[in-house]
């Protein structure tokens, strides 16, 4: 761990200003950042501690929906009565992640920004384009059990490890961002993460100094919600694949369907185009298969993760089957 400065701003303007300088990083729960700093995978020269900012509240919005403060912990969010009632898949996704101790510290904003678990990102003696732009990708041709089948590039095949973000993606969440100029802007979660392309070190649309202040969930819709996580052990393991589904069936046909997938891509994966295939259709195995094939149309395995393609296909079909049955 390299020596670093530590500041604890008292308000938003100071926080964004302090974080604007190169080498600065915000710290909230620190459950990921501190590990990475100890390994010198990340070496910020200044930590801007936002824990005392007023961002730890979950507020119901007058127009319906919920605004989740960036500092709301994963434990608190999972236990929130409104979340459990109106967005149960979010609660389930949160509880499917990490461990009780980690969830007590981990925050909503931090969860969105956690870094990949790619083995090679964590190994400072191995080239990694995400860690050292231009150095190469060690994962390609290496151990790839964890890696992406969708959205990857020749420069990076890492996956985003969050469960929470997958659920939020299916819920059409928006990310609220405070800029250095003091402007609050909102970005749909589906536009928040950038695909790696040839700049895998740039993971989101955040600009220097930008601070996530909250996540906004739109008003709940009447639908069945499912979060299904497939992993190598029963708890405390990242998803090999996961599926979040918000599906409403009315009069025997699918009214709306939103599906997001984790463990398979550099960001929580959603295919709006494929979802159009479902709306207005009667649920059937054939329909689900066609949907899965559409989602997986561009999927490409790396050897060690080839199994994710049939695994995601089966998981999608089973999740849709369950969701449509429960929704009838």
């Amino acid at each position, binding site marked *: 761990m390299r*020596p670093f400065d530590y500041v604890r701003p008292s308000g938003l303007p100071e926080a964004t200003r302090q974080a604007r300088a190169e080498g600065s990083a915000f710290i909230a729960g620190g459950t990921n950042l501190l590990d990475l700093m100890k390994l010198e995978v990340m070496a910020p020269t200044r930590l801007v501690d936002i824990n005392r900012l007023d961002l730890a509240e979950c507020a119901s919005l007058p127009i319906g929906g919920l605004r989740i403060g960036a500092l709301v912990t994963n434990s608190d969010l999972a236990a929130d009565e409104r979340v459990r009632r109106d967005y149960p898949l979010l609660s389930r996704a949160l509880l499917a992640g990490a461990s009780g101790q980690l969830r007590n510290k981990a925050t909503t904003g931090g969860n969105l920004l956690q870094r990949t678990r790619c083995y090679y990102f*964590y190994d400072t003696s191995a080239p990694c384009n995400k860690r050292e732009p231009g150095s190469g990708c060690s994962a390609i041709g290496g151990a790839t059990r964890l890696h992406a089948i969708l959205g990857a590039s020749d420069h990076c095949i890492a996956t985003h490890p969050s469960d929470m973000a997958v659920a939020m993606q299916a819920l059409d969440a928006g990310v609220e961002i405070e800029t250095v100029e003091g402007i609050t802007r909102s970005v749909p979660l589906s536009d928040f993460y950038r695909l790696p392309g040839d700049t895998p070190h740039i993971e989101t649309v955040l600009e220097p100094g930008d601070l996530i202040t909250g996540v906004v969930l739109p008003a709940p819709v009447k639908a069945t919600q499912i979060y299904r996580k497939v992993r190598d052990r029963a708890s405390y393991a990242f998803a090999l694949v996961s599926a979040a589904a918000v599906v409403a069936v009315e009069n025997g046909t699918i009214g709306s369907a939103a599906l997001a997938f984790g463990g398979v891509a550099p960001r929580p994966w959603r295919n709006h185009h494929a979802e159009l295939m479902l709306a207005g259709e009667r649920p059937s195995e054939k329909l689900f298969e066609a949907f899965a094939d559409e989602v997986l149309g561009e999927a490409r395995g790396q050897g060690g993760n080839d199994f994710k393609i049939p695994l995601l296909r089966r998981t999608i079909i089973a999740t849709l089957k369950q969701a449509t049955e429960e929704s009838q």
Partner: protein
Amino acid sequence: MTAHVKMDAPDRRNRLDAMAQGVIGEPLDRSEGALKVSGKAVYAHEWPVEGLCHAVLVRAAISRGTVTRIDKAPVEAMDGVLAVIDDDRLLRNPAQGTANKAPVQGPRKIFYIGQPLAVVVAESFEQARHAAQQLVVETEAADAVLDPEAETLEHERPKGKQTSQGDLDQAMGAAAFSIDEVYRTPGHSSAPMEPHAAIASWDGDRLTVRASCQMLKYNRNELADALGIKPENVRILAPYVGGGFGSKLGIAHDAVAASIAARAVGRPVALALSRRQVFETTMRRSESRQRVRLAADAEGRLTGIGHAALVSQLPGEKFSEPVTQATHFLYAAKNREIVHEIVRLNLTCAGSVRAPGEAIGMTVLETAMDELAIKAGIDPVELRKRNIPETDPEGDKPFSSHMLASALDRGAKLFDWQRRNPVPRSTRDGEWLIGLGMSSAARVNMLAEAEAIVTLSAGGVRIESDMTDIGTGTYTVLAQVAAEMLGQPMQSVTTVLGDTDLPPGPGSGGSWGASSTGSAVFAACEDIRKCLAEKLGCVEEELTLKDGHAVTANRRVPLAELLADGPISVRGVIEPGKTSKEVRQSTFGAFFAEVAVNEVTAEVRVRRMLGVFAAGRILNAKTARSQCLGGMTFGIGMALTEELIHDPRTGAIVNRDFAEYHLPVNADVPQLEVDFLEERDPWASPIQAKGIGELGISGAAASINNAIFNACGVRVRDYPATLDKILAGL
């Protein structure tokens, strides 16, 4: 006074059964348990030592090559840095168990990725770690050998580990049913909760090391040899050890590097391996390729057994995973071919990991037996019972005791095995396919030389030995032996362990700790009883000791009265003798498992598991059970999740932390049941106890894998049975 017992003949007296205190075998809590759970037990790295500074190891980032230059100056100039050391005495790898001398040393030649090349010492841990991360080590890389199955590699066949009896090929040709399959098991890490750590301090020429070690008698000699000093100048203290599972058998990087560093800076030095370093630099269990051939007649009686194992090791290391150890004696068959081969690789040193040999050898043999049972249409329990040998099938020696059939019967009854439907995919619970599986358990039994001093005084009993307690309950079981023999309530017995100044024990390893050191304590106690009998004028056999009193004929005398002229102190010594050679000694058991396989995702969950074990006299039903629970939990990991994943190009262990090296977590471990068969093995030890720490893993994974087949009809021959290996067959 010394009481020396050499185990040349069986001891059928069962003396512990004749005692009156009633504590032997009782499920007593560990005496130090409260200290551990409340954080008061002081582990190696936690000692408050004045003037302490901190050291961190620097690793090799290549798998093979030489160090050409270390740029020390910039790091030496960093804040707080006291020294940058690349002493020739730094270890290449830890010593193997009972080596008693230094392992290969020298940080110039690189043999595996992660090998320690230097040690950085600084005022604080944070400064040392940062400085170590900045140290530039220039190396010249050479081609590394990484694939154990590469065809170009030379296969060594060590003498004494091969068996060829009869004509296996002929038996296979003539068999009514046969199996000829190749199985693989991956490398494993011991992954103890407490990382390997040491604090070294010098007082003139005398070195004291507070360390996390399993075998102090050997560790002292290994450390002295590594440093080039006299063993009498070395003292190792290890009163508490937070798990070892074989990875702390021999002296390791932490103690040696801390000692060198402490000498160099003239101050005490603490060094703890990071979790990554535990994975990269401490012993791994070798991966294995195992070909098993089984030939059986129409009734399922084995006519031939072939078991050929290929394991790997660093160049120059003697140890190799003894995969086929139990295959030699487990099942009868006239024609036998057992082959043990080693290839040399540039991967982390291979060494003992809980039950070296049986853990993976029994697992594979018992998977093959399940395949044979299915092929022959014979119930798997029945198939095993039909093949239990009368005597050791390779040496014609009698077994000291043989409880396999009883364990199989008992397990089948307790688990309600008869409810198993032999047809795969016939039991379902929603999305989950349910299956039952079983396997035999066996682990060789060993007695080791051990000494302990037992002192009986008016105030109670004191036991002293350099034996270690690695979380197993040694403190408590030794106290139970003495309390029983000397008629003392448990609270009157003090056990002092983990100090090389105390009489040498064999340490914790090979499951021999409790029976060996317990026997030394027993021998001392028998002599103390004789002294007391003499004082009372009776024969020892007529003496009853209970609750601090001696009773003989119609007299009841407080022991304090008999000890008024001073305590009685006896050094007990147990030495293995003819019983180790004249009979085949093994512990036996059986595992039964129920699993659920998800039909959509191929995820596997163990639903319940039973282990029935025969391990001689059980000294403490609670600590013994805990040992078996731990072993079975290892079995769940071996069956489903645990695997060292190496980068195919560099050999690097890529999953070197607890997030990615998947040990079973609580949610993976269902209600486990453990059942002990009543047994006294007179050949094993004077206390009729046998080893137990490793039996619970020896074959356990096979019961789970066999249950997977019963559930879904997919046979996994490449452990662990991760979902990707099952998915394709669903």
